[in-house]
């Protein structure tokens, strides 16, 4: 009787251990706002920053004063990355531009795609495929009246097994004609990670 029980327990234990021998990793979708897993900059930090910056800019009294009843043309310059990490700054400014575009407060131009604009206009003018009455001629594009730019900085400290990481996103909105800063804000993020005493 006892031997049977012990045998069954042995089989069960072996079966449980074998489940760890699968070669394919387990993959599942997780929420966009997941809990932090490292002290580095993570997608949820970027999402929070973009949301905060968009809300701050849209609700700033100085912005309404500068914008008035017009919809000024705005360009968004990629943020400068002054950290030691690789962060896709263009992706951050793309997200911010998307949120501001939905507010209807601004019109946008994109300097980064000007090269493609020239290629299109050049091919329309020179390849002989386009009806020249319908071809888009250079020199008609809107000019940016304001631009949005900023920087990401970090301070990292390590004491023993504890890593303290601080990030700061700073952004400004500048009026190109007057040179005045219409809006400025910053978002701070501080994370701490503690390495395990024993690990490989």
């Amino acid at each position: 009787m006892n031997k049977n029980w012990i045998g069954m327990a042995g089989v069960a234990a072996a079966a449980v251990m074998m489940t760890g021998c699968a070669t394919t990793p387990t993959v599942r979708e997780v929420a966009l706002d997941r809990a932090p897993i490292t002290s580095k900059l993570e997608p949820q930090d970027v999402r929070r920053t973009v949301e905060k910056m968009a809300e701050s800019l849209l609700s700033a009294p100085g912005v309404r004063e500068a914008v008035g009843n017009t919809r000024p043309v705005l360009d968004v310059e990629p943020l400068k990355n002054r950290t030691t990490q690789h962060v896709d700054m263009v992706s951050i400014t793309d997200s911010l531009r998307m949120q501001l575009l939905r507010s209807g407060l601004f019109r946008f131009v994109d300097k980064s795609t000007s090269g493609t604009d020239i290629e299109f206009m050049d091919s329309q003018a020179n390849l002989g495929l386009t009806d020249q009455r319908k071809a888009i001629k250079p020199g008609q594009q809107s000019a940016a009246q304001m631009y949005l730019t900023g920087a990401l900085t970090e301070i990292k400290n390590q004491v023993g097994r504890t890593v303290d990481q601080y990030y700061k996103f700073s952004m400004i909105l500048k009026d190109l004609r007057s040179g005045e800063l219409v809006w400025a804000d910053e978002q701070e993020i501080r994370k701490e990670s503690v390495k395990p005493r024993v690990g490989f």
Partner: protein
Amino acid sequence: MKRINGLLGAVALAAGLTALTGCVETAGTVVTTDHTTGSTVVLEDSTRLRGQVQVMKVNYDEVNGLKRVHITLASTRHRRLRLHYRIIWFDANGMELDPDTKTYRTLILEGRDAVTVTGVANSTAGVTSKLRVRDLEAAD
């Protein structure tokens, strides 16, 4: 025989505890404010969170043509609380606006302290706001 029963009991207890680690409550407190009528509804779906955080005050205004809501949350505990909150917006037809752009933000609430959280609709179509507060452990 007694030893085997004891062993089986221990195995069952371990299996039960393992199964329970996945049981994190993700329900929380929801504050819905209709900015056209001014009505506010507070739903406290988590008994645990209800005992930790209270909704003290709800104010709303308009800035640059966009609706804005301010909600004051107060801790009823003496220790530090780590929470997540998110404010989402709905249009006049009850459709959620840009659901993927409104993120959960971290709120660290000191003992017996009160903090006001603010949300701005990023479109003039937003007329109803919904604040959702959850325990930090509810995050994946």
